[in-house]
């Protein structure tokens, strides 16, 4: 385990932005913090990055010598702002020195990182003239520079155009192999593309924490499709909710979920089963169900 978060709470004057959430991040995983705007994603990430003091709760890093673990974190804010008068290279030098990188290592790391985010050609240009996508990639570069244990990214792609979005998502997929990544997004599809596990946040509380597969399966068992040789009229009406596709094909929503009961009924009524299928929810459906709980 890399980080252990216990009962993390942030209260602004009247409003409780994060309501005592607890979760763990395993080393080498990629976790998406998913939720609509205002769910408390940014607040949570800023507390993890040491930029915002939690009202209460604990953040523990594995093998951390002190409570200041900023050295081991790389953070990309939602809208990274630099010093516009610096060049990309100057900013990385500044950042690297603040993160205690040695002089000899610094130059190599800067060259390597700038290459990785494809900013090598503009390294000596002033950041003031950079586009949004370039700033986002430079923000990624400064977060990676000191090889942190945990990379925290706040909505890394939401402000980008489709091209910039694809670039950054590709970079993240590559990084996933080398680092532990925690990133927030309000787009399920982005989470699905990069990560294998999600934490779903709503109004400051965790609604779901687990792998995407288990999320999909957790909500999948709500419908069954049955097709028979004969008509299905008046077979299930008294038992469950029925949706007719045609006379001999129905979708059933058993509650509680018991397929044996349905098959039993079929035998009682002497229908010949042609097709039986448990309907899988799409990830979207599962997400919406979790959100509407």
């Amino acid at each position: 385990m890399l980080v252990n978060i216990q009962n993390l709470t942030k209260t602004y004057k009247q409003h409780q932005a994060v309501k005592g959430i607890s979760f763990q991040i395993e080393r080498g995983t990629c976790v998406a913090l998913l939720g609509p705007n205002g769910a408390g994603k940014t607040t949570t990430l800023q507390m993890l990055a040491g930029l915002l003091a939690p009202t209460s709760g604990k953040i523990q890093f594995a093998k951390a010598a002190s409570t200041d673990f900023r050295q081991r974190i790389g953070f990309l804010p939602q809208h990274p702002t630099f010093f516009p008068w610096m060049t990309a290279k100057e900013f990385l030098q500044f950042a690297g020195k603040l993160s205690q990188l040695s002089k000899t290592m610094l130059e190599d790391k800067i060259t390597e990182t700038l290459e990785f985010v494809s900013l090598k050609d503009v390294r000596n240009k002033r950041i003031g003239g950079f586009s949004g996508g370039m700033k986002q990639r430079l923000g990624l570069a400064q977060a990676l520079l000191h090889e942190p244990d945990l990379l925290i990214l706040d909505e890394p792609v939401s402000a980008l155009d489709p091209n910039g979005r694809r670039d950054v998502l590709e970079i993240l997929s590559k990084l996933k192999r080398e680092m532990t990544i925690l990133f927030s997004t309000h787009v399920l599809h982005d989470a699905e593309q990069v990560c294998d596990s999600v934490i779903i946040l709503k109004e400051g509380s965790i609604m779901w924490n687990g792998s995407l597969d288990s999320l999909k399966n957790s909500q999948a068992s709500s419908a069954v499709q049955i097709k028979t040789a004969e008509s299905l009229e008046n077979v299930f009406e008294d038992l469950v909710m029925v949706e007719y596709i045609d006379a001999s094909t129905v979708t059933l929503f058993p509650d509680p979920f018991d397929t044996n009961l349905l098959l039993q009924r079929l035998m009682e009524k002497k229908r010949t089963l042609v097709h039986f299928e448990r309907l899988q929810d799409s990830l979207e459906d599962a997400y919406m169900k979790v959100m509407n709980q």
Partner: protein
Amino acid sequence: MGEINWAIVTPLLILQAILAIAALVNCLKQEETTGPKWMWCMIIVSISIFGPILYFIIGPKKE
């Protein structure tokens, strides 16, 4: 007015010129200024000493 000793006064004029030119160059190189750029150029050139200083303090747009 009597004779002016230019050796005494010239450095003062040179300093003022440097100040104005530095402000002008900075203003023209600036991507954006608070208020129109031409207005700042006018202020820098026409008001000696205080024009350039005023520009340096509030002219360049902060992000």
